[in-house]
C-alpha cells in the first residue's frame, strides 16, 4: 500500500470518495440506531407478554419469536421489501430494511428478556406481591433492576448483530457503508484497500459498542445471585 496522496493512490481515492463513504457510514449508523431502538422497545413489550401474558398472548408471542428466529434475515428483508409493495404500501428500501431488522431483533430481545426475567428467583416476585405492589411496580422496582444484568450481554450481542445486519440492506439497494465502498471500488478497482477500510470501520463501530456494553455491565455488577 502506498501512503502518499498522489492521484491514483489509495489515500487519494479514499479522499475522493469521502463524501459517499461518510454518507454510507451515516446510513449504516442511522439504520442500526433506529433498528436497535425499535427492537428494544417492541422486544421489551413482547418479552413482558412472553413472561407474564395470558396463555393466548404467550402463544402468539412464542409463535412470532420462533418464526423470526427460523427465517434468515436476508429473506426477511427481501420479503418485507417486495412483499409490502404488494399490499400497496410503498416503503422506501431504507425503511423496509429498518422494519425487517427491527422485527428480527425484536424476537431476540424478547427471548432474552424472558430468560433474564425468569432467572430472577421466584421469591422476589412473591415478596413484592406480598407487600402489595401493583404489577407495574413489581416489574419496575423489583424484577427489572435484577434482570437487567442478565439482559445486558445478549442485548449488546443483538446490537452488534444489527450493525452487521445492516450490510444486507445493500442487497435491496440502500447505499450504506458496504455499498458505498463497492461503488468507490467500481470506479478505481482498489478492491483490497477499500474492503479493508470498510472492515476497519465496522470493527471500530462494533468494538466501541462492545466496550460500551462491557462498561455498562460493570455499572450493573452490583447484583450477584
Amino acid at each position, binding site marked *: 500500500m502506498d501512503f502518499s496522496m498522489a492521484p491514483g493512490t489509495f489515500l487519494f481515492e479514499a479522499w475522493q470518495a469521502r463524501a459517499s463513504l461518510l454518507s454510507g457510514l451515516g446510513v449504516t449508523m442511522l439504520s442500526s440506531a433506529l433498528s436497535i431502538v425499535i427492537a428494544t422497545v417492541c422486544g421489551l413489550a413482547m418479552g413482558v407478554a412472553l413472561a407474564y401474558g395470558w396463555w393466548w398472548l404467550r402463544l402468539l408471542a412464542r409463535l412470532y419469536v420462533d418464526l423470526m428466529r*427460523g427465517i*434468515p434475515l436476508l*429473506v426477511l428483508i*427481501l420479503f418485507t421489501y417486495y412483499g409490502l409493495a404488494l399490499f400497496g404500501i410503498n416503503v422506501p428500501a431504507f425503511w423496509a430494511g429498518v422494519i425487517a431488522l427491527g422485527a428480527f431483533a425484536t424476537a431476540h430481545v424478547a427471548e432474552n428478556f424472558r430468560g433474564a426475567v425468569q432467572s430472577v428467583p421466584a421469591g422476589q416476585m412473591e415478596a413484592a406481591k406480598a407487600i402489595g405492589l401493583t404489577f407495574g411496580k413489581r416489574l419496575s422496582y423489583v424484577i427489572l433492576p435484577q434482570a437487567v444484568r442478565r439482559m445486558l450481554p445478549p442485548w449488546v450481542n443483538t446490537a452488534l448483530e444489527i450493525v452487521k445486519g445492516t450490510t444486507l440492506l445493500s442487497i435491496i439497494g440502500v447505499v450504506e457503508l458496504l455499498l458505498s465502498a463497492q461503488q468507490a*471500488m467500481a470506479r478505481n478497482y482498489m478492491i*483490497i484497500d477499500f*474492503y479493508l477500510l470498510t472492515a476497519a470501520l*465496522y*470493527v471500530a463501530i462494533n468494538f466501541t459498542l462492545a466496550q460500551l456494553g462491557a462498561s455498562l455491565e460493570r455499572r450493573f455488577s452490583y447484583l450477584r445471585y
Partner: protein
Amino acid sequence: MIDYHFDWSVIARNAGKLTDALLLGLGLAVVSLLIGSVIGLLAAYARVSGKAWLSAPVWAYVEFIRCTPLLLLIFFLYFGLPEFDVTFLDKTQSFVLSLSLYAGAYMCEVFRAGLASIPKQYVEAAKAIGLRPWQRQAYVILPVMFRITLPSIGNNLISLFKDTSLAAAIAVPELTFTARQINANTFRVMEVWLTVSALYLASAYLIAMMLRLLERRYASIR
C-alpha cells in the same frame, strides 16, 4: 393485496429447483461447520495454551471476525482473493471458505468455553490411571468437551444454515438466490417468499429436533 391472486402452480413447477437449492444450502452449512470446527478447535487450543504468541493472534482473529459483517467477508474473499492471484476458487468454494472462517471464530469461543468447563478431576483421574498426554486429550478431554458443547454446536449449525442465504449475493444457487430467480421470471413474489420462508423454518426446526435427539442420546455428563 387487493389485486393479488395466489397461484401456487409456480411452486409446483419449480419444486425440483427449490429442493436442490435447499439441499445445497444444507450442504454448505454442514461443510462449513465441519471446517469451522477444525479451525475452532485448533484456535481454542491455541487460546488456552497460555503462550502469548499463540493466543494473541487467535484473539485478534476471533474479535475481527465477530466485529465484521459476514457479507463483507464473503465479498472480500470472492473479489479480493483473485487480486492475490488466488483464482482457483469458484464462487461456491469461495463462499465455503468465508463461512468456514466465520464459523471458526464462533466455534473457537464455543470450544474454549467447553475446554474451560471440563471438571479438573477428570484430567487428574486420567493422569492417575497413567494415560499419556495425547491419550488424555483423545479419550477424556475431547469426548467430554463435545458432549458439553453439543447444544452450542447445534445452535451454530442452525445459524450457519440461515447464513447460507448470503451466498445469494455472489450468485451461488441456494434457496434465496433461486427464489429471487423464480421471482424475476414469474413475478409470483408472495408465493415464492412464503414457500422459501416455510422451507427455511421447517429445516431449522428439523435440525433442532434432530439435535435434541442427539443430545438425549449423548446426555451431557457433569
